[in-house]
């Protein structure tokens, strides 16, 4: 790549849950747009290594960081590793999330509800806290962007599927609004991207094989989304083009 058509340097982005699905697609697209990428993963080291390889092949630095986003100690260690090895963070994509097993509330276990909320809300909020501590101009940072990956479930409620997941994403939307307003004067934008039904492993993990095809029939656009389409929305929200967007969530749901 010649110097002239090389994308400008956009700094470092941390993407949680970046070994698979929307997170992996966002990591690959971020590299093409000029970011160095911290690729967080919890279990699938091999998949994370593949994402790292693709980021590096695009000419950017990359780092796989293992951390369970539901645990504060893991989160703190992850941010410190990034400080040390990649340098100042300019963006955080709070993408790691789980839905739990599909079912009705009357049958759900406490452990599952807790696991979903710990990762999707508690973990996302702590990651945002660490990002604000580094980005806020009030704390000597240079500003930045936090993108919270939400879901259309937040407004649909997902009855008979995973009400607890919908609740977790509604909580995340409230974080986008509240934190966005809290740090608006400190150079930090906080935006949400409410993903539609996307072709990733999350659906079969929740509802078994065939769930995705079953869901596609209910989507006005007539098809499920590809992870790359969700990545486009995330990367636009991170870009200078979205400079006046904050404390709000973009719905990318194919009409759902």
């Amino acid at each position, binding site marked *: 790549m010649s110097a002239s058509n090389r994308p400008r340097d956009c700094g470092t982005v941390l993407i949680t849950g970046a070994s698979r699905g929307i997170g992996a697609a966002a990591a690959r697209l971020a590299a093409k747009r000029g970011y160095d990428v911290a690729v967080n993963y919890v279990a699938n080291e091999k998949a994370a290594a593949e994402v790292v390889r693709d980021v590096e092949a695009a000419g950017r630095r990359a780092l796989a960081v293992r951390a369970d986003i539901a645990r504060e100690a893991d989160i703190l260690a992850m941010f410190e590793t990034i400080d040390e090895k990649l340098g100042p963070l300019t963006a955080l994509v709070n993408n790691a999330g789980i839905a739990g097993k599909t079912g009705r509330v009357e049958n759900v276990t406490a452990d599952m509800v807790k696991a979903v909320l710990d990762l999707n809300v508690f973990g996302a909020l702590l990651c945002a806290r660490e990002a604000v501590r580094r980005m806020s101009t009030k704390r000597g940072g240079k500003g930045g962007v936090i993108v919270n990956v939400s879901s259309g479930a937040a407004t649909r409620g997902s009855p008979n599927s995973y009400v607890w997941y919908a609740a977790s994403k509604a909580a995340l939307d409230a974080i986008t609004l509240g934190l966005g*307003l809290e740090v608006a004067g400190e150079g930090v934008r906080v935006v949400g991207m409410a993903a539609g039904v996307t072709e990733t492993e999350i659906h079969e993990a929740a509802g078994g094989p065939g769930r995705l095809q079953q869901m596609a029939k209910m989507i*006005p656009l*007539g098809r499920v989304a590809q992870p790359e389409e969700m990545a486009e*929305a995330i990367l636009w929200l991170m870009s200078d083009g979205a400079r*006046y967007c904050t404390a709000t969530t973009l719905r990318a749901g194919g*009409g759902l």
Partner: protein
Amino acid sequence: MNKVVLVTGGGRGIGAATAKLLAQHGYDVAVNFQSNLTAAQKVVHEIKAMGRRAIGIRGDIAKEADVVRMFEAVDEHMGPLYGLVNNAGITGRIGRLDDASAETIQSTMDINVVGAILCAREAVKRMSTKHEGKGGVIVNVSSVATTLGNPATYVWYAASKGAIDAFTLGLGLEVAQEGIRVVGVAAGLTDTDLHAAGGEPDRAKKLAAAVPIGRVAQPGDIAEAIVWMLSDAAAYCTATTLRVGGGR
């Protein structure tokens, strides 16, 4: 041939910024204007200077005959329509409802709602794969007023934009399987002469401190969102409205 986009109210403010940014992104642009020929001509010249095609089309969006004629002019001079930006809009004179005239309310609804819906109808007739069209995108320019309500300022304007958001949702669902996306961009307080027309030229400056992000929007800030929504990158966004309000 480049994709063709029609921008209503394209001579000034957000419309003009959108028309020029579209040209930068490789689109040909039809620039609708109602009265300010000089301003529209300036936009057209700037677009042509970028090597794109452009025409200015006079038309009052509140009049069906003008709307129909405008689309025919696009058919004739520009070719198949890919995008419509329903941008033309007015607020009416700033004030409380008990001081507002029926004419103010009527003219706001006629241009912001009836006109936008008629423009969308003409666009769907041309874009829908059901009508042998090739698909396309309709962007409705809305306002953060829909959730703020704008008391003692222009509740009728807020109501008109609320109607537009419902229209974005409904039409978006209606044509989702016909290759057409319908999306909204809810603009925040933007530095345009919309406020002068409402009788308070300094409104944007006066209220800047109340915007969480600390400044009013420039027309280009809103144009960026409109142009992204028109792009293939937004292929999975439809029947929804993006808020571009700086936290407002």
